[in-house]
């Protein structure tokens, strides 16, 4: 083992390599590492934020769904009520209309009956007069007995 100039040579080589490493090797690698670290941290942050957002959105969606369901049932109920009401109204109207029609018909029928009665009475009185004329052979003066005949007809 001889100590010789190799010692100095090695020291110089050491100095050059260290200098080169400080100047040109370390900075780019170190920078890249730091940057990536930051990027990953940002990414994780964003991910957790996104998870929170998702949770919020889900909650909101659930709430909206619940509200809309409630609204729908409300609307349905209202519609049911309204339709029941409408049916009731229609029934009422129909009944009133029917009654009105029936009343009309009844009065018309009565009118008819009365008219027929009147006619019948007139005819009966006429027939009675004709019968009486036949029986009495023109001895009865129509004009003189008109009052009597009318009384007779009214009694029919």
């Amino acid at each position, binding site marked *: 083992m*001889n*100590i*010789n100039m190799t010692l100095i040579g090695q020291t110089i080589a*050491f100095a050059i390599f260290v200098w080169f*490493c400080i100047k*040109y090797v370390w900075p*780019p*690698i170190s920078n890249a590492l730091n940057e*990536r670290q930051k990027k990953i941290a940002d990414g994780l942050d964003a991910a957790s934020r996104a998870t929170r957002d998702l949770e919020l959105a889900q909650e909101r969606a659930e709430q909206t769904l619940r509200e809309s369901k409630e609204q729908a049932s409300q609307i349905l109920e209202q519609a049911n009520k309204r339709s029941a009401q409408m049916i009731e109204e229609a029934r009422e109207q129909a009944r009133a209309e029917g009654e009105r029609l029936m009343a009309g018909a009844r009065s018309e029928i009565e009118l008819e009956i009365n008219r027929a009665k009147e006619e019948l009475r007139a005819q009966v009185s006429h027939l009675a007069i004709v019968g009486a004329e036949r029986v009495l052979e023109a001895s009865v003066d129509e004009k003189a007995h008109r009052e009597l005949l009318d009384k007779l007809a009214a009694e029919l």
Partner: protein
Amino acid sequence: MAAGNEVSTTYYIQHHLQNLTFGHHPVNGWSLAHSAEEAVEMGFWAIHLDTMGWSIAMGLLFIWLFRKAGKAATTGVPGGLQNAVEMVVEFIENLTRSTFHGRNPNIAPLALTLFVWILLMNTLKIIPVDYFPVLFSKLGVDYMKIVPTTDVNATLGMALGVFGLILYYNFKVKGVGGFARELSLTPFNHWALIPFNLVLEVVSLLVKPFSLAMRLFGNMFAGEVIFILIAMLPFWAIWVLDVPWAIFHILVVTLQAFIFTVLTVVYLSAAHEHH
């Protein structure tokens, strides 16, 4: 096992532990050492071409790989190489954050360089010990010791670099007066004990780079010697010991790189701290 029957065991071991040395020989002038004795005779003014070559190659491999990953780095999903590089970078960043208490953006890249560079140099040990010496001897090169961290020059060189940084930051953060006060007034804050403190602190300061260098060198060198000894067994017996030892060394290689790095960061952290 490259060593034939005519080569003695001692020679085989020595050959594998000899660096390819280029230097000024008193007789041959500037030349490659052809034997261990010639390398010793060259004294200080010689350089281990294999240590320098392989360590610089590993350093460039580190720079190239990490620069490539750095240039391609995006904030998107990382690919294979980028993933591996980022894992190492993050590991070092966490280590620095937990160990280093000052505020200095240069410490983490320094630790990264040390860790990966030493790890790569240590990993060369997993390559079977005979491959490169044989390959290079075919090319006419006598010696080739490919693991730079088994050369005390390499580990001590790096430790001296770290020592320089320790001194630099001590002076920078505490100032000359502050550093001198720390050396002379700790651990015993009394004027009469200044000489004692001074001796204690200076020794502990100087021991730092040596303990760094020796720990790494010792572990790697010892492991290498064991690998060489195992390689001298009969060929059918080698794997029985070699495989467990290599697997064990996956741990040692990583651990030693880690220890060197952590201690460097700890020393520099101490240099940044006011008392």
